[in-house]
Structure formats: structure tokens, C-alpha cells
């Protein structure tokens, strides 16, 4: 188990290094002056000697300065606003994380049990209903789904709001960045109403993202369950006469879930893309919306910083999920032993 942990840490470290190298290299590839791209105008003005030195030395020294700057929290300055980037993206990140977290949770909590039910009823009526509806569900373009929801729910029926995180009437101080947590922790007199309002704002964006993720999770789980039910050891257990509840909870559950976890980890990147698109539609103040605005404005330092952050978050989340699934899997060494 320690081996897996070491391998995971090694892999994550190498991947992060490659990401940092990439984000450094992009400064050369993006249009505009390299040094301006890298350090931002303000930084340059504060450190004229550093700039002279950097311009005269070679790429490797510049890279070394860049790493130093990153670690200090100096991620550059935005072209458009002139503000430091790091505090800004750190302020916006929790919003995106909150949306993705809720969406993944809903998709998991609904998708995996229903996937189990579908797998156990393989090729029967319930399974066919689930299969066809999940296929329809994940064929939806996420932006069209969000727009449909806005059209029907917000504009036509006027049940839920169509943009933002919280109505402007409420003023909640920014503490963690997670809106529900912040409302809980703050001591404003209208806590109940604010919570209710925040939930209302959360529903549509979360629904748009989790709609598609749920369909994918359901299909993956169902395929895994159907495969497990065909295996020799389940058939032997049934022949031995073990009660079906024992077979299900002890054998099917574990063996079906273990291969599913790495597959679900791969869905995180698609989920992130969908979250970013949904953020623009619902004007949800998160990293995705900010990044897309940055590219409209050709704000290159912002793009680089945002890309680095999002890539790092996704990579760390995916790799840690894969590492976790490998660590709890007892059959990971299966192929290390000799075949008889």
C-alpha cells in the first residue's frame, strides 16, 4: 500500500512539474512580450534589476525565477484589471469547487444505486428503461440543457432564478468562499432566507451538470455489475446455495465497485468542462466564467494563471481518486503473481 502511495506522489509531482513547465513555455507562445506575460507590468516596475538580469540570462534562470514567483504567491498581474491574479483566482475557486462537488455528489448518490438496480435486472424492462433514458440524458449538449432549463423554469414558470449565486439583497461576508458554509458561519439576521435563496440559485446549475454525469455513472456501474454477475465465482456461489443477499452485499458490491472508481475518476475532466460552460450561462462567479472572460479580453497572464490552477486542481483530484481506488483494491497485485 505504501508503494502505491509513493507512486501516486511521484506521479503527481512529475505531472505538476510538467504543468508548470507548460505554463512557463506558454509565455513564449502567447502573443506579446514574454517578460510582460510572465511577470506582469507591476512586478516589472518594482524589480527593475531583476528584469535586467532576467533578460540577460538564459531560459533556465528565467524558469527558476518563475518557480520562485509562483511559490511566493506572485502569479502575475492581469492585463485587464491590473489586479494581482493569485488573490483573485483564489477567491473565485471555491465557487467552482462548490458547484462541481454538489454535482458529483448528486450524480454519485443517484447514479450508483440505480446502476446497481439496472445491472441486477440485466436486459429486463427496468434495465431497458434506464438504458434508454440515460442515453438520451448524456446526449444533451450541456449548454442547450442549461438554456432549456432557464427558458422553462426561470422565464416561463418563474420558479427559480437564472443567474448568480445569491440575490443582491443579501450581503454575506466572504469567509471560506463556499456560499452555504459562509451563510452558516455568518451571523446575519436573515440567515434562513439567505440559505433558502442560495439553494434556489444552486439548483439549476447543479442540475445541468449532474444530469449528464448521472447518466454516465449509471451506465458505468450497470456495465460493471452485469460483468460481475456473469463471472464464474458468482455462479459458483449461487450453485453452492448461498442466500442472494449474502451474494449481493458481500461479493457483487465490492467486485462491481472496485473497477468503477478509476473510470469515474476519468469523468472529472469532462465534468469540469461542463461546469465551466454552465458558469458562463448562469453568470456563476467561478473560475470557468473568469477564464472565458479572460480569453475574450485576451488577458494572457490571467489565462495562464487560470489554466495552471484549473489543471492542477483537476489533476490532483483525478490522481488522488485513482490512487485511493488502487489502495483499497485487494486484487491490485493479481497480475504480479505467476499464472498457473
Amino acid at each position, binding site marked *: 500500500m505504501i508503494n502505491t502511495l509513493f507512486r501516486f506522489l511521484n506521479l503527481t509531482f512529475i505531472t505538476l512539474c510538467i504543468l508548470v513547465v507548460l505554463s512557463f513555455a506558454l509565455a513564449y507562445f502567447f502573443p506579446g512580450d514574454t517578460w510582460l506575460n510572465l511577470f506582469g507590468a507591476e512586478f516589472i516596475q518594482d524589480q527593475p534589476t531583476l528584469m535586467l538580469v532576467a533578460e540577460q540570462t538564459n531560459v533556465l534562470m528565467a524558469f527558476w525565477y518563475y518557480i520562485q514567483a509562483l511559490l511566493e504567491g506572485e502569479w502575475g498581474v492581469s492585463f485587464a484589471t491590473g489586479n494581482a491574479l493569485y488573490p483573485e483566482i483564489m477567491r473565485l475557486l471555491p465557487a467552482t469547487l462548490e458547484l462541481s462537488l454538489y454535482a458529483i455528489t448528486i450524480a454519485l448518490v443517484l447514479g450508483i444505486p440505480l446502476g446497481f438496480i439496472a445491472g441486477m435486472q440485466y436486459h429486463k424492462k427496468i434495465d431497458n428503461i434506464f438504458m434508454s433514458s440515460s442515453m438520451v440524458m448524456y446526449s444533451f449538449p450541456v449548454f442547450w440543457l442549461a438554456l432549456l432549463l432557464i427558458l422553462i423554469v426561470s422565464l416561463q414558470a418563474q420558479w427559480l432564478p437564472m443567474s448568480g449565486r445569491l440575490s443582491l439583497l443579501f450581503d454575506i461576508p466572504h469567509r471560506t468562499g463556499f456560499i452555504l458554509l459562509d451563510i452558516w458561519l455568518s451571523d446575519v439576521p436573515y440567515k434562513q432566507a439567505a440559505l433558502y435563496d442560495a439553494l434556489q440559485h444552486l439548483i439549476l446549475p447543479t442540475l445541468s451538470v449532474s444530469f449528464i454525469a448521472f447518466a454516465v455513472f449509471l451506465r458505468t456501474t450497470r456495465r460493471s455489475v452485469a460483468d460481475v454477475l456473469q463471472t*464464474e*465465482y458468482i455462479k*459458483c456461489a*449461487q*450453485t*453452492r*446455495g*448461498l442466500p442472494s443477499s449474502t451474494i449481493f452485499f*458481500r*461479493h457483487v458490491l465490492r467486485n462491481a465497485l472496485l473497477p468503477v472508481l478509476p473510470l469515474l475518476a476519468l469523468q472529472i475532466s469532462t465534468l469540469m468542462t461542463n461546469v465551466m460552460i454552465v458558469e458562463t450561462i448562469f453568470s456563476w462567479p467561478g473560475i470557468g466564467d473568469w477564464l472565458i472572460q479572460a480569453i475574450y479580453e485576451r488577458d494572457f497572464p490571467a489565462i495562464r494563471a487560470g489554466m495552471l490552477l484549473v489543471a492542477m486542481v483537476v489533476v490532483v483530484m483525478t490522481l488522488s481518486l485513482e490512487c485511493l481506488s488502487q489502495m483499497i483494491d485487494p486484487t491490485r497485485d493479481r497480475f504480479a503473481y505467476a499464472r498457473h
Partner: protein
Amino acid sequence: MIILDIKNLTLEIESNGVLIKALDKVSLTVKENEIRALVGETGSGKSLIVRAISGALPPQWIVTADRLTWRGENLLTMKQAQRQAIMRRDIAVIFQDPMAALDPSSRLQEQLLESVPEEFVEGRYWWERNRSKMKIAKQILARVGIENVAQCINKYPHELSLDICQKFMIALALISQPTLLIADDPTRGMETNIKKQILALFTHLNKTRDLSILFVGHDLLAISAMAHSMTVLYCGQTVESGKMKALRKRPLHPYTKALLDSAPSFSPDLQPKSRLVALDGTIPTLQHLPIGCRLGPRCPRAAKECVQAPTERSINEHKYRCHYPLHLQVV
């Protein structure tokens, strides 16, 4: 006393609109305390018989039989729950590949403990019951001949060798104290010394614990030393059955003779470069089954009458199905 009685069992499946008889009027009996061998080539339908008895056939198969009874009760007409109860307590099955038959993600200990029938466990509280289950489990494991029990029991199936897994499967089968043990080619792919161990274990269990065994396989040499009686199966038809000694001394069906002759004998007076004895041809596929006696195309004694399936005749409990058995002259 006969405990398992199968008479004229026929298994049919539809393929491309035609009904194919995979098993054609198979008959088999197992008496108490007897080791019966069911011998046949690959593709003769041995595993199908095992699955028909245990009820694990996919629903596409059509099962008809004059008699398929366990201790007098008809297995085909009884309720599902009763049949499952019989499978759980009285009949135990061991399969070919022990690694595939064990759950790869749980330790041997858990798999053994969950198979202990409730009737044998003493104690009221769960820790007492667990302890009693462990005791029974350890006893059984020692009886099958697994040495360091404490070490093996905590491992996963893929960490152990094939023979320990197979012995574990036997222990798993024995834990409910069955009356009949059906072994579906349990020693396939094993080295000879391990094969000998497993077969010696079977003989030992048969003698000491009054266990009847239905041993399905194709290794004549090994089985003939161990079994009391044998049924020979060819391409879904039983060709001969009877006591082992009688079959070995005087086989009545050409196929049985060919099987017995084909087992290599390393006697010192064997001529160099002498041919190995075997029947010409191969076993027919399900799509091209010969009519009548299915050995017809390959049999050296075949004649016009073999186009009709022979009926079963018997001499002193030595049953055979042949128009031209070996003790009669062919004109």
C-alpha cells in the same frame, strides 16, 4: 441404495431454428458410498450433466428426462426453494478452475465462514457463533490436508497456488456435510503429484466419511484406480456403464475399448516406433451430429444398423448401447 438416479436425460437447445440434442438419453446412477466416474472426451457434454443436476442451466435449454431424482424426489418438478436447499446441504459441486471459482476480492477466511450452515453453529451471541464457525472451518481445512492453515486463511485467492485453492474448494464443498460430491474435472491442468494428492483425498473422504462422489473427467489412468463404477459418455450419449473392474477387464463397447487402449502404457516390452492406439477422426460438432449412434462415422465395427440409435441392454448390471458389442462376432 441409489441416491442419484438419472434416466434418459435429454437436453435440447435451439440453434438457427433447429433443435439440437446436446445430451441424448443419458442415464447415470450413483449409489451410496460409491465413487462413480463419468468419462468422456472434451465436448461430450459432461459439464452439461453437472449443470443439469445442480440446476445451473441457462433458461434456453430444454430439459426432459424419464427420471432425474435425488433420493427418490424428482428434481425437475420440485419447487425452486427445495431444490436450492438440496444443493446447499446434500449435494456439493467442485468446478474446474479453483481460482476463477473464488471471489478475488475477499479473503479465504470470509468465504469459508459465510458457507458454514447455520445448523452446525453453536452459541447465541455473534462472537460465540463466529468462534464456533472458525472452529468448524479449521477442522475441515485440516481434514483436507492444508498445512499452515493460519497463514493460508488470511490470503486472497490469487496469492495462493492452484492445489491449495482446489483443496480449499473441496473444504468449502465439504463444510455442509453433503451426501454427494460432484467433481467436475477438478484436476485439470495440475501436475501429477498434486493430482495424486487430490485423488487420494477423494478416496480417503469416500472411505471415512461415507461420501459418494461423481467424478467427471477424462483422465482414465487416474480415475480407473480410484472409481468403483464408471459411465462412458460419447458426444452426448452414454455408451457403456458398469463396475470398474468389469469395464477394464472386458469392455463391451468399441469406444470404451478405444479409450482404454489409448491410455499410454509404458510397459517394457512395447515395440519402438509402434503406433499409439486411437480412433480415427474427431468428435463431431453440435451442428453436424450423426443420426443414430453418434460413434457411427468413427467406429471400426459400424454397419448399416448403426443408423438407428441402439437401445440399452445389460449383462449383470453392465449396461451398454451398441448394435455390435465386442463380445459378439460381427458377420
